[in-house]
């Protein structure tokens, strides 16, 4: 369970202690900046911000390498598509394939954008326990007029927390089934279709049983979905306000129009 994609790593750091709402807003603003980034200068700045956060979050670099690793193939394809299919000054060609300067730049920037989106997202999930993320999202949802379309923010948050409770369990289940089938001679690389069936069919069967067990454990502990309180209270502290101040500066830096003109030169 510990090497789960986008998992929470409980240690004590400034980032861990921040209010979940501060971190969620931070991720949203960071995503906007990342998606707007169109020059190496901006990407470098984003990387700089990430490195600072990495430094203060007290987590091993390996954790972030692990969150990027499963997506490497996706990043590679993204990069290659941009590299070969962007028109412009040809800098290299081999038979019918040609690489343009523009393609190289665009490919690198677009790929790095996705890498950083993922890295910032894993900063949030690594430093914030899922139940705190849920609590944060619930408090945002409460501001939306969801009631008018027939959804209560509480139901929504409950649904989210249930899937958070069940996800690690299902993953754990998947892993033990996969290992069991491999030890019985299943070769996933050679017979991918057979592998899918021989893992997914028992997975559904055992998952249903285990989900029932967890549901029973929850009911046993008086879960009814209503009248719940939380061990965590959400409150903004001095550090949170400091972060909002930083957000303001960094964000306006990124969105300022003259900034774009300046770096293109």
């Amino acid at each position, binding site marked *: 369970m510990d090497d789960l994609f986008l998992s*929470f790593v409980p240690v004590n750091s400034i980032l861990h202690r921040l209010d979940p709402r501060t971190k969620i807003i931070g991720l949203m603003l960071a995503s906007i900046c990342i998606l707007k980034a169109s020059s190496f200068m901006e990407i470098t700045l984003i990387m700089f911000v990430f490195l600072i956060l990495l430094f203060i979050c007290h987590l091993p670099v390996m954790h972030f390498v692990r969150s990027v690793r499963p997506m490497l193939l996706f990043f590679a394809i993204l990069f290659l598509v941009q590299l070969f299919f962007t028109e412009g000054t040809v800098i290299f060609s081999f038979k019918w394939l040609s690489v343009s300067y523009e393609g190289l730049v665009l490919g690198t920037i677009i790929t790095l954008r996705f890498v950083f989106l993922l890295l910032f997202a894993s900063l949030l999930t690594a430093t914030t326990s899922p139940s705190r993320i849920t609590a944060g999202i619930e408090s945002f949802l409460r501001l939306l007029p969801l009631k008018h379309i027939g959804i209560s923010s509480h139901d929504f948050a409950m649904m989210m927390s249930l899937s958070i409770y069940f996800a690690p369990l299902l993953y754990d289940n998947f892993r033990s089934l996969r290992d069991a089938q491999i030890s019985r001679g299943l070769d996933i690389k050679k017979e991918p279709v057979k592998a899918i069936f021989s893992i997914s069919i028992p997975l559904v069967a055992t998952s249903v049983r285990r989900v029932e067990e967890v549901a*029973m454990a929850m009911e046993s*502990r008086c879960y009814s979905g209503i009248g*719940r309180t939380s*061990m965590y209270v959400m409150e903004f502290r001095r550090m949170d306000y400091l972060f909002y101040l930083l957000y303001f500066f960094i964000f306006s830096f990124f969105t300022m129009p003259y900034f774009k003109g300046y770096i293109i030169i």
Partner: protein
Amino acid sequence: MIYMIHINNLSYRYPDGTLVLDSVSMDVHKGEFVAIAGKNGSGKSTLLRHMNGLMLPSEGSVVVKGMDTIDSSFILNIRQIAGMVFQDPQSQFIGMTLEEDVAFGPENLGLPQEDIRKRVDMSLQDVGMQEYKHQTPGSLSGGQKQKVALASILAMKPEIILFDEVTSMLDPYSRGEILGLITQLHENGTTIVYVTHRLEELVHADRLIVMENGRITHNGYPRVILSQGNVVDSGFEFPPVIELAKRLCDSGFIDPACFPLSREKLMEALCQLM
């Protein structure tokens, strides 16, 4: 004596028609340690799950501290009074860290934040897992997970704890530790209902209930039941100690009234013989 649990003519039928409990009647008194034993499939878990309203009777009634489980307005109250620890250490973990898992129950009770924290710390301390409270369960052994499961029930301040074969997936050492915690709770006044198919775990029980095919076949003092011949039919394996004690008893060397249930007691009995 005060009834904590009063079960009257309870029958349970699964929707597919299988009769799993057949007119079961039994009581659990305040402060008692009741062990329920029987073969796999004899209906032990089903019976236990009726004791905190996880399952509801098809016929008959289950009353916990004066509250009938069939009345849904009592159900949360009943579950707070009668907590349950399950067999599988993995699938009763709710939350990402130990602290969150233990907090889950008190959070459901709607307690204020400081109370929740106090209860979490106290119950983790009671089972000796306080130092791990910020860890994820992935790093724990089966025995440690069961301790946390027990802590998560203790945090709800129950009066009765129902244990469903909680040691069956554990190594002997952790089994001993968990049993130690349970006996300690019993000594402090908690009512215990303990389901097992291991006879050697009955040493601490005040009373033994043996189940077979959804019925109660024996209900009484463990040593009396075990010293009678006919429990063998219920199909459990006797641990060597009890097997030996039984043979000595059957051949008249040991008085059935002081039937030894543990190695130490058998040792004493043998010393007396010599």
